[in-house]
């Protein structure tokens, strides 16, 4: 069973990711979090296999959270999901070994990310 961590301060964005993931992989477990602190608390109880993280969140941003998750789970694939399509942010994400997923999320974009990532 694959567990996906979805982190976004927007409920609409979380719902869109959850809906797209469910249509692709109906048997996967989706854990949602509203921010970095919530995400870090939830991964204590449930280890994620994949993480999809919004960049622009109040408090800790998505890249900083990705670094913290990498410290705990060295190999998990992480996708940075963002409306900020700047090349500089894409490069920062890629330098951390994260995929860059432009909002709005679609099933195709998630499939491309997840099929490249080892499950």
């Amino acid at each position, binding site marked *: 069973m694959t567990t996906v961590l979805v982190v976004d*301060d*927007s*409920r*609409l*964005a979380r*719902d869109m990711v959850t809906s797209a993931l469910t249509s692709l992989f109906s048997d996967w477990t989706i854990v949602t979090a509203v921010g970095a602190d919530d995400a870090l608390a939830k991964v204590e109880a449930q280890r994620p296999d994949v993480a999809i993280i919004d960049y*622009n*969140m*109040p408090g800790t941003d998505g890249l900083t959270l990705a670094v913290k998750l990498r410290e705990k789970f060295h190999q998990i694939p992480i996708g940075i999901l*963002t*409306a*900020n*399509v*700047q*090349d*500089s*942010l894409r490069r920062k994400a890629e330098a951390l070994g994260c995929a860059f997923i*432009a*909002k*709005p999320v*679609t099933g195709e974009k998630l499939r491309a990310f997840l099929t490249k990532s080892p499950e």
Partner: protein
Amino acid sequence: MMEISETEQDAIVELFNMGMGQAAASLSAMVGGEVTLSIPHLEIKPSGQIAELDLVRRAERICAVSEAFDGPFTGRALLIFPETSSLRILRCLMPLPPDPHPLSDDEGEALAEVGNIVLNGCLGCLANLMEMEIDGGVPSCRIGSPAQVFEGRASPFPVDEHVLFVRIDMGLADQGEGGHTLFVLDIGSVEAFLDAVRRFLSAQGPGGVG
């Protein structure tokens, strides 16, 4: 008053045209319908006059998603819709009661995400074109009468001062009145913005951006 040459004005309009084109494509994918855009309109005027836009004066209640941005130049980006138009957009994204109603906190939060995609999509495209970094803040949504949204300490523009103001009208095709997307540059950083525009123009060579 600051002078902006015709060539610079043309370049600014085209840069925002391209940026909003990207933002509209993202919104279109999100709502599953055509998004219409006007040509960007550029002027320098006091920020207080933003509350005097026709749409803002006419609507009983408006929704304004705003975020600050920072980088070589600073300012605020806003997405302003009449509340009724906001409901039409949200109906494309989530189940809502059929009748017009004041937006709830959840609906306001969903609208903030729409603003996030539009405003950051445009700013990100601009940053790429101008080869610079622009840091966008977290968008917030204010809902109420124009006076409630634009007056008081929580207003996006608590101080009335001259700003460089770029307005693009945006809406869903065949869905009635749309709204405004506004990019408002602090006057103190307009010269830095114009320098970036000049660098962009010079990088395009004698043929310009076309």
